[in-house]
């Protein structure tokens, strides 16, 4: 089944809170399915991976922080983060899509939605 993913809304900045992460999946037949991708553990694992690879404290990974300009995460670090997550969850993340993302929240959300679909 080919699907397009649209994040339902942005995740809230406080990672300790329960994230309600609704992902809209549009199938090739045009049916829109709503998937609740809420998963604190996944989000915290993604953020931990970013924190370890980019050597940035977890508390600095607020959702509205800019990945390149504020955290200094370049394309090499981004691809390392993607590779580790792909390996951990057995998923595939499109490099071009992820490189276009500028803020932490959208980055985490994009990956979480891929994991939710897997």
């Amino acid at each position: 089944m080919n699907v397009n993913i649209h994040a339902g809304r942005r995740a809230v900045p406080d990672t300790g809170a329960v994230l309600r992460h609704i992902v809209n999946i549009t199938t090739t037949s045009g049916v829109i399915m709503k998937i609740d991708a809420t998963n604190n553990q996944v989000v915290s694992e993604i953020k931990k991976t970013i924190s370890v690879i980019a050597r940035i404290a977890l508390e600095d990974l607020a959702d509205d922080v800019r990945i390149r300009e504020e955290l200094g995460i370049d394309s090499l670090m981004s691809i390392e983060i993607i590779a580790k997550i792909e390996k951990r969850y057995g998923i595939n993340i499109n490099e071009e899509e992820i490189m276009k993302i500028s803020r932490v929240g959208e980055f985490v959300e994009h990956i979480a939605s891929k994991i939710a679909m897997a």
Partner: protein
Amino acid sequence: MKIALISPRGATAIDDRLRSIFQDSRDVQGYIDSLSHAFSSGLLVVAALTPDCHEIRVIDENYDSIDFNEAFDLVGISAMTQQASRAYEIADAFRKRGVMVVMGGIHATVLPQEAKEHCDAVFIGEAEHTWPAFLDDLSKRTMMSFYRGEAAPDMAASPIPRYDLLNRNNYKVIWMQTSRGCPHDCEFCSASRVYGYAYRHKSIAGIMDELNVIKSIWPRGRINFADDNFFVNKKFSKELMRHLKALDLRWFAQTDISVAYDDELLDMLKDAGCTTLLIGFESVSEQSLGSVNRNSWKRKQLSGYSPAIEKIQSKGIGIVGTFIIGFDSDTKETIHTLSEFIIANNIFVPQITILTPLPGSRLYERLTEEKRMLHNPWSHYTFTEINFNPRNISVEDLKNELYNTYEKVYSRDVRLKVLNHFKSIFKTVQ
């Protein structure tokens, strides 16, 4: 005294066509990622050598404007060659207002008489001995026109640069020097003729103290080690890597290919926070490389380039590979071979520049003697402009080959190939 220490605005190396090329691949890998305005570390050392009784303002003209009517008692300017034209404009403007101006840095060091036409005193070489002597002379009103650093300063005794004087919000990448001197006598290099070929470094404790100062100002900052050749003394480098590991930093350094020949050192880099290494490959033409060093060191490495690149990048470290076009033996064909090499070897960030005869270099002397210099203003010495008559290719064709090479190695397909190559690597490295 109220002292202004000024780093003049740099000439832009990226014209509209290059900007357009990099923009096209911006989403798949930013070449611009790898660039950052470097502040003048030398001025921060000068500030650290200045007694506290003086008030110092550091002005980086890439970010801050200069108020020529501000009441400075002394203006110090440090410039590289591409900044020299602007440095002279600034110096002239202050002197017109009766302000004393002194100049240092690499350009004033190699062309002191030229610099002297625009200022009251010129600093030749490193500042550690000369700046305190100048301040002493100034207080006694016995100032000289030239201050020459005769002996190479002991870097272990060099003070921590005054990073606190920078506007911290301007910089995400912090340039820091741990050593001076490079054993390679490259014909195009002027730095070696200023700092000498003997390698000198700061102490481990001094480096750690300096890094802790930087971390206190920029907790998320990335470090670019500005040393011309970071791993000259492998034993010292390994000791440094052990200490860097504890600081949890991300850093970049410039080195030569010999880092690939030391497995123990190579294995330590990523843990120590190294993300990227800049390596000056210069060329993949045996003839061109043969002209670089008197002892042909770089030519002798050529057969090892591909395995060395693979070995370094297999550790998860991206190579910023720097290449020069415009050597006497370069033709359109050799430049095409270069782009094929870059693509085949998945070099993370290729950087191609035009051979540039920097004043102070042996290349400058040779091309002047051969009457091949184009006598452009110093603001053209950006490494993407052509400042001499090439031997086997026209000026126009050489410039076009620069664009063509960048277009090839920064095409979307090539950048995606490189990213996928690194994705595979990162799935295997710990």
